[in-house]
């Protein structure tokens, strides 16, 4: 068993695949994070992310998978769930070692597992498309905070850019401490250092219309309920508790 330590990026993962084939490794274990003392491990390789190597692996993947298939590998990587790398490495090796396209080989455990992870990540992305709630700041920018289960911000850019083309907006991931910002032309990644922002900074969070539309939306939400049909189990299945704190109508 060889342990590969990589930096957690998608390029790093592809570089690891390169090393596996280069060194003809059979049994591997992936670890994310910093290189610590080597004494603990018998057989450890530190993967140094390398553009040339990762591009070669990506090129190979593109030959064996459809465009959608390559995209799915990337999406699964964004899940960041424990041992996700094991599935990804298994999937990529199955793709390279097979002489035909394996995307629909659901009898293979890696293919099935990857499709489940992709489904989970895409569900979370869809939830974010639904549950983002903007507040209008005094400078006219629309601001929202989220803390999604998976790292889905990169998957949200196109949707929000297409939809809100004529307003500036920020969506900030509180858990991963970065956001995406649209300035009417392009979307860029951003970081906000909340620890250093003073009272003046916080004041800018107040919205210009005194929250009248938040108030109207809450009223609307209560008015459309039909008490005779109440079904909290179904309600919770659609909106699990953990999302409530960001939803205007549930606060």
């Amino acid at each position, binding site marked *: 068993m060889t342990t590969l330590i990589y930096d957690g990026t998608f390029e790093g993962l592809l570089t690891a695949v390169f090393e596996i084939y280069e060194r003809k490794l059979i049994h591997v274990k992936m670890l994310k994070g910093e290189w610590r003392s080597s004494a603990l491990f018998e057989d450890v390789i530190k993967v140094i992310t390398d553009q040339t190597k990762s591009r070669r692996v990506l090129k190979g993947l593109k030959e064996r998978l459809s465009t959608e298939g390559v995209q799915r590998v990337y999406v699964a990587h964004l899940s960041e769930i424990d041992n996700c790398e094991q599935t990804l490495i298994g999937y990529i090796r199955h793709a390279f070692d097979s002489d035909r396209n*394996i995307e*629909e*080989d*659901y*009898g*293979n455990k890696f293919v*099935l597992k990857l499709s489940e992870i992709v489904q989970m990540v895409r569900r979370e992305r*869809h939830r974010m*498309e*639904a*549950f*983002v*709630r*903007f*507040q*209008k700041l005094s400078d006219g920018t*629309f601001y*929202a905070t989220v803390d999604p289960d998976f790292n889905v911000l990169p998957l949200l850019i196109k949707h929000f850019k*297409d*939809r*809100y*083309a*004529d*307003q500036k907006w920020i969506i900030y991931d509180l858990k991963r401490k970065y956001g995406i910002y649209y300035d009417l032309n392009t979307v860029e990644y951003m970081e906000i250092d909340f620890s250093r922002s003073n009272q003046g900074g916080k004041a800018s969070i107040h919205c210009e219309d005194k929250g*009248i*539309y*938040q*108030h*109207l*939306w809450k*009223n*609307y*939400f209560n*008015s*459309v*309920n*039909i*008490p*005779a*049909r*109440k*079904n*909290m*189990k*179904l*309600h919770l*299945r*659609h*909106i699990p508790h953990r999302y409530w704190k960001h*939803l*205007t*109508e549930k606060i």
Partner: protein
Amino acid sequence: MDAVRITEKLNILADAAKYDVSCASSGSKRKNENKGLGNASNGICHSYTEDGRCVSLLKILLTNHCIFDCAYCVSRKSNDIKRAGFTVQEVVDLTINFYRRNYIEGLFLSSGIFKDADFTMERLVRVAKKLRTEHNFNGYIHLKSIPGTSDELMREAGLYADRLSINLEMPTEEGLKLLAPDKNRQDMIQPMRYLKQEIIQNTEEKKLFKKAPIFAPAGQSTQMIVGATNESDQQVLNSANYFYQNFNLKRVYYSGYVPVLMDKRLPGLNTAVPMVRENRLYQADWLMRFYGFRVNEIVNETQPLLDLDIDPKLSWAIRNMQTFPIDINKAALQLILRVPGIGVLSAQKIVSARKFRKLTWENLKALGVAINRAKYFITCNSNIFEKRDLVGTSIKQFILAESQSKYLKNAQQQLSLF
């Protein structure tokens, strides 16, 4: 803006609109090409009410003043309730500001009939026109068509709206006569027929000229109230099927009657909402639209009512045991779709996966098949399968004994005779 007054109007006019079940915002393909606000494509449910319904659109009435007196409707003329009306600008402002905050996919606008059909419809169209032309709004707009609207107005509505709908209200004409004496079915059908032709014509034009304007791209839908009169499920589903076939409807919605008014023609105020029946009707509707079932396979002269204990697919399967068991590794997709416990996605995955290897029970389970139901109807790459020659009724017993219906508050203990 007078916040107090607007809040009051919104409460009244949202409350009055909530019995319209349609909240779909999908099926359109309006793009944000003018760098304006919004787009409409696959539909998003932005929130859910405590009764579990999707909140996707700002669903309101322009006004609840109405000259009609339909027995089942809260806004009927003779009902003593608070009345209110929005101005065109108020609806536009609410829509835009809700949309910018990502609360909604768009607007669902309906109205009480306050003068005549065209007068009311013209006001609805004006809202849509203003959103599209003055505010560059490309979000989803669903307009309710008022029965009896002229063709010219329907045409204008189709140019601005994504979806149009007229509620049939009652599954049968007799039911409509009894409960809504001011309405007649012909007034509902005429705008539907006009729209159907316009939509077909527009699709043809689109093929020839890419720049041709889009016309009601999300098509039309309708709604029927069930449980207000004594129609059978066969009548309901036949009626739905008729409108799917003849008017190219995208959706028929079934609304279990919520008793809101005292009227000797209606079920009493303490009658429960027929939620199980409504659910079974939707399941049957799905079977017709996605599973290749014909309406008379689901309900017919000998079987005019849907079984409330089990879903209509299982019900069909146990009446047609001669079709089963089928071999999951060989059967056609159309046949796999008919197996209880296998949905559309699982069926497609089965057909894909079996090209690589013969599938076993473990594979099927991993693919998401509900084995506890499907096992009576299929064989796969395994020596283990149901060898008893079971009759349909005993399969029903077995499945009911194993599953806990979400509708049965107190699980009934039934003696198993087998």
